[in-house]
C-alpha cells in the first residue's frame, strides 16, 4: 500500500489506507481432503468389520451389538488412519472430537428413536378420530380400535394438573419471593427444606398422600388426591427454579425502585415480578410438564376408571400416564396399540408445553419482546403528554422529537 499524505513527515499518526480491495475471507479451519478420507474410510472399515464379525466369523448377532462393534472398530481404524500422518497429540484430538460427536449422535438418536417408536407403535390407534373423543367405557379388550378412546384420561389429566397448578403457582412463587426479597434466617431454613424435598422420590409422595389423605379422610381414591400428590412433587421443583429466576433480576433495578421511595411491596409487584415474568412462566410450565408425565404418584392415589369423570372429589379419576400403564398391562395387541397411542398424545402435550416455555422463556430478565417494547413506548409518551398538558410552560417537560 502507498501512503500519500504529506503530514507523515511531520510525525502525525496516519491510518494506512489500502489501495487495493481486500481479498475474500479465508476460512480459518481448513477441512482437508485427507480428513474426509480418514473419516469416510474409518466409517466404511468399522461397518465392514462389524458386518464380517456378525454372522460370518463369530456367533454374535443383533442390531445393538452390531452398532457397538462397528463403533469400536470405527474408532480403532480412525486412530490408525490419523496416526499415519500426524503425531500422538493430534490423534488424541481427532479421536476425542469423534468421540463426543458420537456420544451426541447416540443420545439424540435414542431420543428421536424413543419418540418415533412411540408414535409408530401408537399410529394404528392414533388415526381413528374416536380415540380422541370417546372413553374406554364400552371398549373391551377384544374390541377393534374403532371403538373407545382416551378422552376421559385427557380430561382427568387436565383437571388434576389444573388443581395442582392452582396450589403450586401462588404458593411456589410466593415462597420464592419470600426467599429472595424478604430473607432472614427463616428464609434460609425454608430454602434448605425445599431443596431437601426435591430429593423426595415421587412414589414416596404418592405413598404419603395415600396413607394420609386417602386412608384417614376420603377413604377412596380420587382426582383431588392425585392432584395433591402431584403438588407435593411439583412444589419444590417450581420453588427452586423460580428462586433461580428471581435471583437473576439485576439488583440495580431494585435499588432504583427503592431510591425513588417505593416500598418493598411496590418494588416486588412493579419491578421484580414483571422483570422476571417470562422466566417465572418457564419455571411453572416446565414444572407442569414434569407433573403431567409423572406416573408413580397418581398410580397410588387416583385409581383406575374407564369412564368420563369430571368431579375430582368423588371416585377414581384416571390420567394419561396411568392410562398408558393400565393399557399396556393387557396382552391384547389392540390394547397395547392404544397404550402407545396414549403415550404419543401425552408426549405431544409435553412437547407443546415445552415449546410454549421456549417461546416465552427465551429472553433474559427485563428483555422485552417487540410488542411489549412498543406498548411501553406508547405508555411513556402518553404519560409525558399528560405532564406537558399540566405544565405547559415548564421547559423540562418539552417533548424531544426522536429521529
Amino acid at each position: 500500500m502507498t501512503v500519500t499524505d504529506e503530514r507523515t513527515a511531520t510525525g502525525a499518526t496516519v491510518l494506512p489506507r489500502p489501495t487495493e480491495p481486500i481479498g475474500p475471507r479465508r476460512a480459518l479451519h481448513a477441512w482437508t481432503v485427507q480428513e474426509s478420507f480418514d473419516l469416510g474410510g474409518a466409517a466404511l472399515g468399522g461397518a465392514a468389520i462389524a458386518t464380517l464379525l456378525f454372522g460370518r466369523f463369530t456367533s454374535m448377532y443383533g442390531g445393538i451389538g452390531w452398532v457397538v462393534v462397528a463403533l469400536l472398530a470405527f474408532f480403532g481404524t480412525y486412530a490408525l488412519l490419523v496416526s499415519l500422518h500426524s503425531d500422538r497429540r493430534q490423534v488424541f484430538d481427532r479421536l476425542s472430537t469423534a468421540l463426543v460427536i458420537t456420544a451426541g449422535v447416540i443420545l439424540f438418536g435414542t431420543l428421536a428413536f424413543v419418540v418415533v417408536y412411540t408414535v409408530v407403535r401408537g399410529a394404528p390407534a392414533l388415526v381413528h378420530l374416536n380415540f380422541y373423543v370417546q372413553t374406554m367405557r364400552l371398549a373391551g379388550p377384544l374390541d377393534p380400535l374403532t371403538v373407545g378412546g382416551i378422552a376421559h384420561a385427557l380430561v382427568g389429566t387436565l383437571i388434576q394438573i389444573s388443581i395442582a397448578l392452582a396450589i403450586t403457582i401462588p404458593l411456589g412463587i410466593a415462597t420464592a419471593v419470600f426467599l429472595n426479597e424478604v430473607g432472614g434466617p427463616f428464609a434460609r431454613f425454608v430454602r434448605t427444606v425445599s431443596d431437601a424435598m426435591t430429593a423426595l422420590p415421587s412414589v414416596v409422595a404418592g405413598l404419603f398422600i395415600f396413607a394420609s389423605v386417602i386412608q384417614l379422610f376420603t377413604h377412596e381414591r380420587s382426582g383431588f388426591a392425585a392432584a395433591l400428590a402431584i403438588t407435593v412433587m411439583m412444589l419444590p421443583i417450581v420453588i427452586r427454579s423460580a428462586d433461580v429466576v428471581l435471583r437473576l433480576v439485576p439488583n440495580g433495578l431494585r435499588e432504583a425502585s427503592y431510591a425513588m421511595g417505593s416500598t418493598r411491596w411496590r418494588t416486588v409487584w412493579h419491578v421484580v415480578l414483571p422483570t422476571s415474568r417470562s422466566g417465572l412462566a418457564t419455571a411453572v410450565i416446565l414444572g407442569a410438564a414434569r407433573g403431567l408425565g409423572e406416573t408413580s404418584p397418581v398410580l397410588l392415589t387416583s385409581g383406575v376408571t374407564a369412564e368420563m369423570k369430571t368431579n375430582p372429589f368423588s371416585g377414581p379419576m384416571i390420567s394419561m400416564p396411568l392410562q398408558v400403564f393400565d393399557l399396556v398391562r393387557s396382552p391384547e395387541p389392540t390394547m397395547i396399540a392404544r397404550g402407545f397411542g396414549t403415550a404419543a398424545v401425552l408426549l405431544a402435550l409435553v412437547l407443546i408445553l415445552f415449546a410454549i416455555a421456549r417461546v416465552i422463556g427465551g429472553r433474559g430478565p427485563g428483555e422485552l419482546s417487540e410488542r411489549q417494547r412498543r406498548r411501553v413506548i406508547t405508555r411513556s409518551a402518553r404519560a409525558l403528554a399528560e405532564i406537558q398538558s399540566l405544565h405547559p410552560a415548564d421547559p423540562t417537560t418539552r417533548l424531544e422529537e426522536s429521529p
Partner: protein
Amino acid sequence: MTTVLSESMLPPEAPARPRTVRARPTGSDRAFHAVARSAGGATVGIMLAVGLFLSIRAKDALSASGTSFLTEQQWSPETGTFGVASVLFGTVTIAVIALAVAFPLALSTALLLSEVATGPVRRLLVSLVDLMAAVPSIIFGLWGVYFLQSAIIPVSRWLSSTFGLIPILAVTDESGASVTDASFFTSSAFIAGIVVGLMVVPTTTSVMREAFSQAPSGEREGAYALGSTRWGMIRAVVLPFGKGGVIGGTMLGLGRALGETIAVYMIISPIFAINWQVLKTGTNSVSALIALRYGEASDFGLSALMAAGLVLFLLTLVINFSASSIVARSRSGAQSEG
C-alpha cells in the same frame, strides 16, 4: 488579611457515632411480609408434614423389626420377617448400572455442547437435552419393555458367555451351571439400568455443561496460545475447572436414578433375594416395591412400606445435598479465579 480560626469558631465536636437508620414499614409492606412469610411457612409445613408423617408411621414397623430391617431380604410384614436388604441392593445395582451408562454419555455430550458445537446448532442441542429431561418416564419404560428388552438379549448373552468368569456378569441356574436360554436374560437389572441411565443423562449433562461453560476464556486462550490442541485444552483447562460440576452432576443423576419408579417397575420381574448376577432376570427396587405392594398392604404393611420409602428418601437426600454442595463450592471457586 488573614483569618484566624479561634477555638470558639469551630463547631462543637460531633459525637463520632453513626446515625441510626430505622425503616418504619408501611401497612402494605407489613401485609406483604406477612403473606410472604406465611407462604414460606406453608411450604415448610407441607414438607415437614411429609417427613414427620413418614417417620411416625414408619416407627411401628421399625420398632417391630429392629436392625434386621436393614439385613433381612424377605418382605412379608404379615409374618414379621421383612427388610430392605434385597430391594436396597437392587436399587443400588440399577442405579450403578444407570450411572455406568449415563456418565460417559453425559460427559461427552456436555463437552460436545460446550466445546464443539457452536451457534444455532448448540442452541438446538441444548433445547433437545432439556426436552429429553421432560419426556415422561413411562415413555422410556414402554420403549424399554417393548423394544430394548428383546434387542439387548444378544448383547447380554454375549457378555455372559464371554466374561462368564467375572461373577457379576455370569448367568447361572440354581445348580451353578451357566445358561444361555433367552428367558434367563429378560427383566434384568442390566436392562432397567440402561433405561434409567438414558433418563438421567439430561440432568447430568446440563449440570456438567454449565460447569464447563464457566471455565474462564483467558485460560482457554492461553492453552491454545501455547500450541495446545482442543483436546489438550479440554484436559488442561475445562475438565479441572468443571470437576465439581462433573461430580455434582453425576451425583444428582444418581439421586434421580435411585428414586425412579415406573420404568423400573415395568421392566423388572421382582424377586426378594440379593441377585449378584446383573444380567440375569430378577431384581427389585424400593420404589418398585412400594408400587407393587401398597394396595394389598395392611396397616402394619403400609408402615413397613413407609419405612422402606423413608430409607430411600434418606439415601437420595444425602446424595442430593452432597451433590449440590459440591456444585456450589466449585461454582464459587470458578468465579473467584475467573
